[in-house]
């Protein structure tokens, strides 16, 4: 296959990954052309709405890859990954708020609208620096990483595993949600951050900016996927799987299990943060709802449905579930949650390896491999 030659050596055996990245490249190209160059009256025109919607799915897919890393490969069922996603989103949101400048409702160049509304006189210390894009981007990575490190350091050192760890991650994201709901926290409370105008000086509403954001999301997904593939293909990845399957054994052959768990967790949190940062400018809002425990549970379901422990399964799952969600909430909103629940039950009972595993099953029955 010609495709294989385009990839670094660690991607050589990952056919599905190669195809995925080829599709991403093709999709970006097609969407950009058919959005910008084909007139709106044509049937081939891709609307900005569709473009943004798929762009959003791309960030979800990156988030799903992050969850798959810790759950599929390391066996840590994190039910709080939405928190890292939201933190990345908030860091980006803060930058976008500062970009509004004096175009806000109150016309205050120094303070975002909600602070004026709360009668605050000056910018809180933790908002300093967010008017600079590079600083905000560092925070997109640093804040989720720091939280994951802190949480993971104590949780893994105390050897909290299984259900208890899952509950703790739920508590983590729930606590953050409650905190961010408070106006005193200085993140816009209930309403969150919204009414963004532009990014790096480019209008957020323009088609060109949307296309660039789409491209950035596709690129991040591709790079994040390849980085994850590199990690799981390295010896570190093999140790991580070993820890999942036989934690004691790994310990007694000399691996510091806590460190392995910690670093895969931090890496995953960073990916989730980046996904969040790309999500916010496309959706146009970030509010404490993103921290909701339900969100985190839902994204575990994406991975389960797609198939865990394969990386591309997570991407497929994120797309399937979110497309279905968009469709059902439009057509039959009251059915959606039942459909999601049913899908989850069916997958857990009949497809232990998810939708992607189904394909393998069919191929095996065809007798191609035994």
């Amino acid at each position, binding site marked *: 296959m010609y495709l294989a030659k385009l990839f670094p050596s660690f991607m050589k055996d990952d056919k599905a990954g190669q195809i995925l990245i080829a599709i991403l490249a093709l999709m970006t190209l097609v969407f950009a052309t058919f959005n910008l160059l084909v007139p709106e009256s044509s049937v081939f025109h891709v609307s900005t709405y569709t473009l943004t919607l798929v762009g959003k799915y791309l960030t979800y897919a990156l988030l799903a890859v992050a969850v798959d890393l810790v759950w599929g490969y390391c066996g840590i069922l994190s039910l709080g990954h939405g928190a890292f996603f939201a933190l990345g989103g908030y860091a980006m949101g803060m930058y976008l708020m500062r970009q509004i400048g004096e175009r806000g409702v109150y016309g205050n160049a120094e303070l975002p609208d909600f602070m004026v509304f709360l009668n605050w006189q000056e910018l809180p210390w933790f908002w300093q620096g967010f008017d600079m894009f590079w600083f905000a981007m560092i925070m997109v990575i640093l804040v989720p990483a720091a939280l994951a490190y802190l949480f993971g350091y104590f949780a893994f050192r105390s050897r909290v595993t299984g259900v208890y760890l899952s509950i703790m991650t739920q508590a983590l994201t729930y606590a953050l949600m409650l905190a961010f709901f408070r106006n005193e926290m200085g993140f816009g409370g209930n309403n969150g951050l919204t009414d963004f105008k532009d990014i790096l000086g480019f209008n957020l509403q323009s088609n060109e900016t949307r296309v660039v954001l789409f491209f950035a999301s596709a690129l991040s997904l591709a790079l994040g996927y390849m980085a994850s593939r590199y990690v799981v293909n*390295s010896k570190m990845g093999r140790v991580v799987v070993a820890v999942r399957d036989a934690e004691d054994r790994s310990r007694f052959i000399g691996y510091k299990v806590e460190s*392995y768990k910690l670093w895969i967790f931090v890496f995953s949190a960073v990916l989730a943060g980046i996904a969040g940062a790309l999500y916010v400018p496309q959706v146009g809002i970030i509010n404490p709802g993103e921290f909701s425990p339900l969100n985190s549970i839902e994204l575990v379901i994406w991975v389960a449905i797609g198939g865990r422990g394969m990386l591309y399964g997570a991407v497929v799952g994120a797309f399937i579930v979110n497309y279905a969600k968009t469709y059902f909430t439009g057509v039959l909103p009251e059915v959606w949650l039942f459909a999601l629940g049913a899908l989850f039950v069916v997958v857990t009972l009949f497809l232990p390896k998810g939708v992607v595993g189904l394909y393998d099953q069919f191929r095996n029955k065809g007798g191609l491999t035994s």
Partner: protein
Amino acid sequence: MSNALDQLRETMRRDRVFDFVAEGRNPFVGRRTVLPGEIDASHGPIFYMESVTVSFDGFKALDDLTLYINDGELRCIIGPNGAGKTTMMDVITGKTRPDSGTAFFGQTMDLTQMTEYEIASAGIGRKFQKPTIFPEHTVFENLELALAMDKRVWTSLFAVLTAEQLDRIDEVLETIGLQELKHSRAALLSHGQKQWLEIGMLLAQNPRVLLVDEPVAGMTHQEMDRTGELLLSLAGNHSVVVVEHDMNFIRSIASTVSVLHEGHVLAEGTMDEIQNNQKVIEVYLGE
């Protein structure tokens, strides 16, 4: 002259000289005396356990256990269920901390102050009672993971096997007779093959001391014989501690046997001595 020297040696025996250690005035407690790569076995024993007591909810799994293992020795440990054999291994490998007493590896390393992975890298390998391998990895990968090398996260991320390491893996594969299954998933191995793979992982780890918990459980007679030969060939370069129930197997390999009962050593000696020991007979056969 030599007599005087012997006497001096006798007084300098760590277990005697440091008598105060047992009195709970251990100067090393709370201080880490880890000197990796410097296992000092110059006084004979590689391994000292002194007055170790471990209790779980009032039940004394180990009760004032004192045990020395010599460098290069093959030692068998037998005892009825609940005698504390597995707990003893847990203490040695850092899984369980003793309530009192000391465990030293060589003369310098205080095992009670070290974590599991530190103990493993210092050179104590352990085979579990139930064969524990990595089922989703191939046989080759199982050995690769066990191989003695820098096992920190960042080095693992960029690790590439050297030719030497590949040779070492092949060597181990040959010893455990699994060359043909090199690339099969370990989950697909038979029970006996899993036992062998786990022993192979121990070998790849290249430890100074091997702790082997019931190595022949579930093996055929043929496999048992081969395992016996393997363990015998390892003694000398390594110290091997075998916990086993199968008396015939022990007879075929043992030089020294320690009998554990209710958390302490009941008797120690050759197999014949043990079998004629009145206390042992009582414990095993009842009065």
